[in-house]
């Protein structure tokens, strides 16, 4: 339904996007994950028709962004990282204005505004001026204006940025709720957010998509790091020659005191993990604990973005 093929974007001589391709099916909630400066906002702006790509093309429902940019924009609702709101308007006026501006027929506006205010939890502040609202409510109004004209695709740039924990939970619910009627594409550099909210993840690094899939499929492609604590000395550990074991890499050792050492390594498989523990035991080190060193998606993300050249 939404397709980007070979999209590149240059700012002067600097390449912000390099041959980015992906497709998103109807009803999916997809997250762009990347560090600051990875190109997330640029790719979203290209999708929404705010920027023309230097190469490649984007389409929504088969409508090409270059051939029919206005038709494309009718099908997309966009919330930038800073909601575009006029402080002198009430919430109701703002949502109605955005709906009309994006082409919703006048006779349908009142009903749609009521629906959207309900959906976004704004009914109780509908007649408040936007300048009176908290940051969390302003984000909600931003989502309300993005969905007011019933777009197929809703694009949200860092929607939880600056929200407190309670507002984040509420925002997650709101974004998941959009899934019923819209396809949602959001960006974030916050791993847990992407993990909680999205069905699928596109990992962007230095303008390239370096991986895509569900959290589980991404994790499956990356060997997990393991942390072992054992009774023994650094000398015992050196004698064990762990670094020579097949499937064990990125070995780090630390003396934590009281005759206990800690070992961190990345293991390629369960067999390699078993081999590592067995070797330690055979060399007389008393293994006390074996655990995953880092959380799932964080580990995957760090691995995927490490050493990738633009």
């Amino acid at each position: 339904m939404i397709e980007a093929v070979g999209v590149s974007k240059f700012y002067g001589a600097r390449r912000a996007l390099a041959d980015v391709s992906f497709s998103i099916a109807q009803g999916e909630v997809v997250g762009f994950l990347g560090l600051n400066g990875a190109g997330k906002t640029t790719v979203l702006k290209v999708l929404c028709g705010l920027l023309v790509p230097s190469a490649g093309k984007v389409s929504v429902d088969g409508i090409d962004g270059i051939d029919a940019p206005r038709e494309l924009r009718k099908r997309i609702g966009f919330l930038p990282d800073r909601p575009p709101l006029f402080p002198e308007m009430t919430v109701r006026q703002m949502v109605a204005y955005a709906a009309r501006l994006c082409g919703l027929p006048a006779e349908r506006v009142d009903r749609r505004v009521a629906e959207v205010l309900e959906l976004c939890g704004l009914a109780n502040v509908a007649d408040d001026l936007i300048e009176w609202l908290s940051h969390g409510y302003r984000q909600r109004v931003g989502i309300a204006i993005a969905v007011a004209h019933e777009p197929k695709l809703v694009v949200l740039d860092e929607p939880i940025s600056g929200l407190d924990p309670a507002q984040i939970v509420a925002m997650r619910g709101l974004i998941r709720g959009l899934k019923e009627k819209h396809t949602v594409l959001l960006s974030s550099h916050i791993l847990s957010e992407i993990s909680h909210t999205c069905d699928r993840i596109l990992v962007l690094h230095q303008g390239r998509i370096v991986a895509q899939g569900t959290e589980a499929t991404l994790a499956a492609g990356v060997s997990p790091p393991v942390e072992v604590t054992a009774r023994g000395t650094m000398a015992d550990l050196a004698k064990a020659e762990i670094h020579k074991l097949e499937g064990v890499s990125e070995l780090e050792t630390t003396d934590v005191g009281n005759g206990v050492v800690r070992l961190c390594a990345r293991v390629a498989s369960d067999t390699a993990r078993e081999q590592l523990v067995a070797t330690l035991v055979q060399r007389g080190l008393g293994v006390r604990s074996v655990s995953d060193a880092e959380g799932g998606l964080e580990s995957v993300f760090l691995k995927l973005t490490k050493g990738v050249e633009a």
Partner: protein
Amino acid sequence: MTTALLIARRELRGYFSSSSGWIILAVLLLLDGLAFNAFAMAGEKKSFDVLQSFFYFHSGATMVASVFIAMRLFAEEKQMGTLVLLEASPAREAEVVLGKFLGAWGFLLMFLVLSLYMPVLVMVNGKVTVGHLFAGYLGLALLGAACISIGAFTSSVAPNQVAAAVLSGAVVVVLVLAWLVAKNVEGVLGDVVGWLDLFDKHYRTFSRGTVKLSSVVYYAALSYGFLLATAAVLGARRWRG
């Protein structure tokens, strides 16, 4: 056109809800009234001359008002991050520019209407024709439209409102002083520069109660040209890189 009117309505609401809009109106009307009292009404004059003086001074206030009214059109939206709402919408650049121009021009027309009490006083107490009044205000409206178009363009290229005001003020001053340049340039070039004059060549006839079609065309063309350039600037923002 519906989209342009929608944008114009919101723009007009923006002027009424901001203190700067009211301050511009109040200060300029006050200065206008003082100038009218001090210069136009000074000494023994015929009603025709009083009205002509009024239109002379009022044109200055109109140009200043236009520069200040137009400075916020795009520069403020860029600063506030709200321009993206228009850019992400299916509205054409021409509709956006026309809507913003109409909103700003509507606010300027309100300024002109609020100044009507001065010529009406002349009319009640002296002998002037409705035609003179009409021609003078038509001239002011056209002069204002041209200055707002210039302001819209500078607002679209300037990084902030102050820079937009300075830039459009400079362009207006250059066009007002074009007659000075024309006086010192001979031949066709001198004629062309003279014809480009914003004030002396084209406005003075309106202030005397005469409507010249060539001047109407001049103001319309100048406004259209700058609005077209503004739309081009907005379109080019999508290609930036």
